[in-house]
Every structure is written in structure tokens, then in C-alpha cells.
């Protein structure tokens, strides 16, 4: 469809750049961003220790500074939780009150859903059936199977037959074996190909996709019936501006849930609401594995498709989609995707943190636009938060054991750390309930409240370790 609002030049496709070059430049920038303040801090500490100033006083003052910073960071997080609760409630309320319809209209763009099952995938057929029953006027489901799921099983289950499908190879990919279609399920297309990495499978799917929008969907997830409609909504609202729309995959609290599951859910709720201002960017940047997202096919082809299909690629895509120009990156707050099984928390947390670092770096690169300045500061806080907490913990405990810090200061530090963590954790649960995203029963609430205490006191410290590890991985992986 012709867009009269854009100049003709904007349709001209840019030459694809090599992703790793861009990633390396920004990783270097991120490293400097994080390392310079710490180098300055270490130099100041060494100078102070070399001077005549008593070591006890220096360590105590550093501990006080860290305590104040942790408190301020907690206040910032709580303000984001309040903002998130109010904003999310409004959008959920508006969606619940106004029953929406998705008619076959030129305003509703067709979507291709890409699904690459993993070896660990259970109930693949069930997932496919649920994806075929989505409430969306025009979509296709492309399953790229690299041998992870027995193709024969799918052939029988869905009445698939080999077809001679010709498609344009816009992206360079490995070979494929066969393409199957089903008369019974015309929306379904299954591609079998040799074993390869996820990026190659995704690129094969992008080549085959016939729709202008492509939905990336995690294998261990289930979309709600109106999930695709809600996810595509930003593209209908602002078709010329929206570049990405994403939503977080939610974990459900099953009846037989263990306490550790509840702790993970409490942690996710806190992270979701306390990153309110930057949620869209962080969720998308933290990778395909944490969310369900829709990209424009033209953008994906323009950047040369996926190379590793890991966290950071979406950042590069965002960057070259024109971060400094007018565009919209939307995050849908509604619950539209459920995770059937959760990834290991250390992986998720590491990815989240690494994405924060990369976003900070890429944001800094586009610093010409002053409007983004508060965003940088928030990102820096997000980057430094786990480092601050871990550093404070090591310093205070070390200082106490070596007799450099008094017990009063240790108590002050731990009370600040724990009280802010408890408040953040429980406010995440309250915000989720208030914003109408989830309505928990009394027993679930009690379990979550208990889990939030464990999350604040124990899990958070372990999580900080993995988040710092994520930062290092982001910086080192070039």
C-alpha cells in the first residue's frame, strides 16, 4: 500500500552490513561505559589507601556510599513499579472493556509465524494445533524442522504432502530437504532440513514467509487465542512507524507448582514492572527466547537475517532500523503468551543483563538525540545495579570479617538491602494484581508472597551473580 506520508527515498533498501562488526563496536563501547567509572573508583580507593587517611574510615565511607546508592536505586525501581502498574492497568482495562474485532481488512496485515521446534519440545502437535486455531484474519504457520521432531509424525498427524513450493532466497541459507503442505490445514507449511543452528532455520523461514510481518515464537510457549491480534495491534495502529512489537512470555503458577517456580515467577514479576520505562527495548533486546515478537520482513532482509539468533541481534536490527529516526518499538503488556517450561533462570537473567548493557551502549551511540538521555541514565542504573549490590555485599562482609567495618554499619547495609529488595519484590506482585494482568487465588497469593521473601533475601543475591556474569559475557562475546 502506498504511503503518502513518506518520501520515495525511504523505500530504498540499504545495503546489508555485517552484524558482527556492528556488535563488536557496540560491545567495545559498552565495555568502556562500564569500566571507566570502576577504574576511577579503584584508582580513588588506591590513592586513599596510600595516603594517611585511616583504612577503616575509607572502607566505612565507601560502604555508606554504596548503601545510599542501593537505596536510591530501590526508590527508582519502586517508582517504575508504580508507573507500570498504573499504565498497564489502563491498557488492560481498555482492552477488556472494548471487545475488539479483527476483520479481514486492508488495515490488518497478514502475519507469518515461524516455529522451529527443539529436541526438547514436548507435545509439538498440540502446540501446532493451538497455533492453527488463532483468532487472526490472515496468517500462515511455517514450521522449520531440522530433525528435532520426527517429520513422519507430523505428516500423519496433519495430513501433510510434499509440494513444489518456489520461493525467493532473499537470505543465504543452508539446503532444505522438502516442503510439505496440508489440504486440511491450509495455513500450515512444514519445511524439513538438515540439522543446523537456529539462525539458519529462522532464515529459511524468513525466505519462505509470504507476509510482510513475521512473528517469532518460542517453541515451549502457547499463544492465547487473541494473542496474535494483540501483538499485531501496534502495526495496525501506526503501520508506518512500528518496527517491532513484542510481549513477554509469562510463566503460569500451576497447581502443583514448587516453591522454586513461585520464586522465579516473583522474580519475573519484579523485573517486568521495575523496568517499566525501558521494558520494550529490554524485552526485545534480551532475545528471542524470552518473548514473542513481530518484526517486519523487509527489515529482517535488509539486515541480512539472523546470524546467531542470540541476544544482541535484535539490538543490531533495532539500531539499523533507524534508532535515531522516528519509529515505534512496542511492548504489549497484556498476557498473550504462556511458557510451558521455563529456561534456566541463570540463562534468562544473564541475557536480560547483557541486553541492558548492549542497549546502553547502542543508546549511547545514538546520543545525538537528547530525548533519549533519561533512557541512558535508566539503562546505566540497570547495568550497574547488580554490580553495586554484589560489590557492597563483598565489601561489607569482607570489611566486617577483617574488622574494618563496625557491626552498626553492617546492620545498616543489610537492612537497606533487604528492606528495598522486599519492597520491590512484593510491589511487583501487587502491581501485577493491580494492573489486572493476573488474578491470583488466595493460596497462590500466599505462595507468591512467601516466594517473594525468599526472592528478596536469597535468590536476588544469586541472581545478581548471574546478571554480572551476563554483563561479562556480553562484553567478551565479540
Amino acid at each position, binding site marked *: 500500500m*502506498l504511503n*503518502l506520508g513518506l518520501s*520515495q527515498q525511504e*523505500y530504498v533498501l540499504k545495503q546489508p552490513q555485517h552484524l558482527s562488526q556492528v556488535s563488536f563496536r557496540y560491545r567495545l563501547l559498552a565495555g568502556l561505559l562500564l569500566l571507566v567509572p570502576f577504574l576511577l573508583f579503584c584508582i580513588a580507593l588506591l590513592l586513599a589507601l596510600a595516603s594517611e587517611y585511616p583504612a577503616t574510615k575509607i572502607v566505612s565511607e565507601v560502604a555508606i556510599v554504596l548503601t545510599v546508592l542501593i537505596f536510591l536505586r530501590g526508590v527508582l525501581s519502586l517508582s517504575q513499579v508504580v508507573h507500570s502498574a498504573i499504565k498497564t492497568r*489502563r491498557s488492560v*482495562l*481498555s482492552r477488556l*472493556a*472494548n*471487545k*475488539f*474485532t*479483527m*476483520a479481514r*481488512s*486492508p*488495515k*490488518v496485515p497478514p502475519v507469518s509465524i515461524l516455529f522451529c521446534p527443539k529436541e526438547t519440545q514436548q507435545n509439538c502437535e498440540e502446540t501446532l494445533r493451538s497455533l492453527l486455531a488463532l483468532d487472526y484474519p490472515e496468517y500462515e504457520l511455517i514450521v522449520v524442522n531440522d530433525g528435532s521432531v520426527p517429520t513422519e509424525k507430523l505428516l500423519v498427524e496433519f495430513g501433510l504432502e510434499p*509440494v*513444489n*513450493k*518456489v*520461493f*525467493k532466497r532473499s537470505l543465504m541459507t543452508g539446503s532444505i530437504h522438502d516442503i510439505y503442505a496440508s489440504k486440511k490445514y491450509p495455513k500450515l507449511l512444514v519445511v524439513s532440513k538438515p540439522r543446523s543452528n537456529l539462525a539458519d532455520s529462522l532464515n529459511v523461514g524468513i525466505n519462505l514467509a509470504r507476509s510482510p510481518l513475521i512473528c517469532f515464537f518460542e517453541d515451549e510457549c502457547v499463544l492465547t487465542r487473541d494473542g496474535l491480534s494483540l501483538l499485531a*495491534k501496534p502495526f*495496525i*495502529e*501506526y*503501520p508506518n512507524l512500528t518496527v517491532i512489537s513484542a510481549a513477554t512470555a509469562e510463566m503460569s503458577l500451576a497447581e502443583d507448582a514448587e516453591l522454586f517456580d513461585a520464586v522465579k515467577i516473583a522474580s519475573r514479576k519484579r523485573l517486568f514492572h521495575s523496568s517499566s520505562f525501558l521494558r520494550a527495548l529490554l524485552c526485545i533486546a534480551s532475545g528471542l527466547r524470552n518473548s514473542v515478537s513481530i518484526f517486519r520482513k523487509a527489515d529482517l532482509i535488509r539486515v541480512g537475517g539472523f546470524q546467531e539468533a542470540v541476544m544482541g541481534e535484535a539490538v543490531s536490527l533495532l539500531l539499523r532500523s533507524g534508532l535515531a529516526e522516528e519509529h515505534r518499538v512496542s511492548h504489549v503488556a497484556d498476557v498473550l503468551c504462556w511458557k510451558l517450561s521455563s529456561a534456566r533462570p541463570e540463562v534468562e537473567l544473564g541475557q536480560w543483563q547483557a541486553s541492558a548493557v548492549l542497549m546502553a551502549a547502542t543508546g549511547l551511540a545514538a546520543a545525538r538525540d537528547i530525548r533519549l538521555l533519561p533512557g541512558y541514565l535508566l539503562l546505566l542504573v540497570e547495568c550497574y545495579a547488580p554490580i553495586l549490590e554484589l560489590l557492597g555485599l563483598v565489601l561489607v562482609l569482607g570489611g566486617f570479617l577483617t574488622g574494618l567495618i563496625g557491626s*552498626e554499619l553492617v*546492620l*545498616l547495609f543489610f*537492612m*537497606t538491602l533487604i*528492606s*528495598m529488595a*522486599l*519492597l520491590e519484590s*512484593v*510491589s511487583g*506482585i*501487587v502491581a501485577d*494484581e493491580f494492573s489486572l494482568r493476573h*488474578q*491470583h*487465588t*488466595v493460596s497462590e*497469593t*500466599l505462595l507468591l*508472597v512467601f516466594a517473594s521473601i525468599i526472592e528478596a533475601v536469597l535468590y536476588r543475591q544469586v541472581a545478581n551473580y548471574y546478571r554480572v556474569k551476563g554483563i561479562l559475557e556480553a562484553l567478551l562475546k565479540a
Partner: protein
Amino acid sequence: MQFVFYFLIVLLALWAFITIAQVAYSIRVEAKRRFKSEVRARFKSVLQQIYTEAGSPTRISIDEVVASLERICKDRIICRDVLIEFTSKLDLDESKPLRDAYERMGFVKQDIELLQNGKWQARFEAATRLGRMRCWSAIEVLNGAMRDKDEDVRFAAVCALAEIGDQYSIPAIVHALTDANGWQVLQVSERLLAMNVDVTHAFLQMLTASGGVKSRREAVIKTVLDLIADFAQRADDKLNLNAARAAAYQFVNSEQLDLRARAIRVFAATGVATPSEFELVLNCLSDRYWEIRAVAAKALGQIGDQAAVSKLTEALRDEAWWVRHNAAQALARLGQSGIEALQAQLHGEDKFAAETAKQVLEELQLDAKSGA
């Protein structure tokens, strides 16, 4: 230092308070949810009995519905929600007794008051309820709510008016849509389509209306032309196509690019009835602006008249690639003669035309092979 400790203790107390409040809230919500489902189940069986005994919705006593609902539940909010739930499950005639009961129980009056004096959420929810219950008596207030300071309330009011189905509200709804985003326009046009009235008169009146700020008037005309194109494609029984074409005719030569493009899109959706209309669209292929030429090329493909082949072939050599692209696509839609024209360009002198024709022919080939 002591002060800091006191402060931290206050923080911990705050945490304890929030935790207890959250648990208490959960208990309350769960109890309410359980009670509501009980009310729903009991009201359902009572309603079934009332409907069966009456035989027809017109013979149902409103007092009986009100009395049975009040007997089942004393909580007015739950009564109201249950009534709305059941109304939305029934068709317009079947739900009439429930809508009358809603009014008899004073909910309409209450909603109108909330819409005028409530906070944003109350106003928003009241507007939505009035729409769902198709309260004709609330049309005036809903018209006022379309000027509400809150965007959500304004949109809820627009949806409510469209849902009520009063054709005299169409101009106000279209005016409101001029500032709406794509999703909002889609939702409202769906409701307008469901109104079951001929919208021609309302649309045409808006196109011919004069006065007001020029930019605003143009925005309204754009929205109306968009809606006409949408209706022509999806519900041509609710629109007089000849009248729509006649209305679009006057804007094809407008000074405004947007208006001209939209008028051509109307012809693409409605088709052309006379040679002069076809000529008009065809002439747009020679417009000085590439945007208009591109829209015209696409429209000629949709109109499907073979007489456009030669002009579209010329458009393959247009300086703007989007025009070339649309012209090639249009030729492909025109059947054999169009495809022959494209094939003739493959070895022509014009490099651009050859490339565009090649691309479209390749796409056609791909589609044909895939189809086979």
C-alpha cells in the same frame, strides 16, 4: 544514625503492611468472584425459566426480571455486570427485556451521571456499558463524551455510539475518527458496518458540508473517503455505489494530494460505471505528482479494464520506481494482454521498465508454480 535505622524500620513496616493488604485484597476478590459466579448461575436458570414461560421476548415482564435479579443478589454492581454479560450473549431482540431491566433498575441514569462527573475509569467504563446496552437515551451524553479530555473515554464514547447504531450519530463518529489511529478506525468501522443502515446519505452529507476550519474539513473528507472505500470493498449493500462514485468524482481534481489519492482509491473499490470515470482515473496516470500516478496505476489494476494496458505500459517507464512497480503489478492483474505487455518490455531499451517487468513476471511465475 539512629534516625536512619528508624527510617529503615518504617520501610520494613511498610512492606509488612503492603503484604497484608495484598493478601486481604486477594481474599476479598476471590470471595467476590465466587459470589458472582453463583449469582450468574442462579440468574441463568431463572432467566431460562422466564424466557421459556413467556415464549417470546416481547411478552416478558420487565418487573419480573428486575424482581428476580434483586431477589438473587443485593449487590447492585454484581447485578449490573451480570445483566451486561447476559445481554451481550443474546441478539438484539432477545436482549430487549434485559436492556429495559437495566434502565428500570436505574443503571442507565447512574452511568450517565458517571460519564458526566466520574473519574477517567468510571467515565470510560460507563461509556462502554452504555454502548453495550445500546442505551438510546444516552446518545446526547455520549456525543458530549466525544469531547472528553481523556483519549480512552473519547474512544469508548465513539465505540458506544457506533454500537448503539443511531445513524444520526454517524457524522459525529466520523469527525471523531479524524484523529484516530489505524486500530481505532478499524474497530469503529466494524461497528459502523454492523449498524445495518445505509450510510450513503450520512457520508455524502459530510462530504458536501461547508464551513469550519479548512484543515479540519479536509481531515473529515479524507476519513469519509477512506470509509467509503472500506464499505465499498466489504459491504457494498450498505452504500449506494453510484452516489459514492459521484462523490469521489469531485475530489479527483482537488488541489490536495491526499484527497485526490483517496478519491482514486474509492474508484478502485467501487469500480467505474461510465467511460468518463475511467478516463478520469486514466488521466491521473499522467499527473505531475508521483504519489497520484502510483495510486492511479494500482487502481487501474483493480478496476480491471483492458483499455488501460497501453497507458500502464507507458507508466513502466515512469521516473518514480513505485509508479513503475504499481503499473507492472496492475498489468499483471489485467490478464493475458497485460502479461504480454510486460513480456514485451523485457528486451526493451528502457532498463528500468525491463527490470520492473522482469521482477513482476518472476513473481507471477513463482505464484503459478506454487499454486500448481
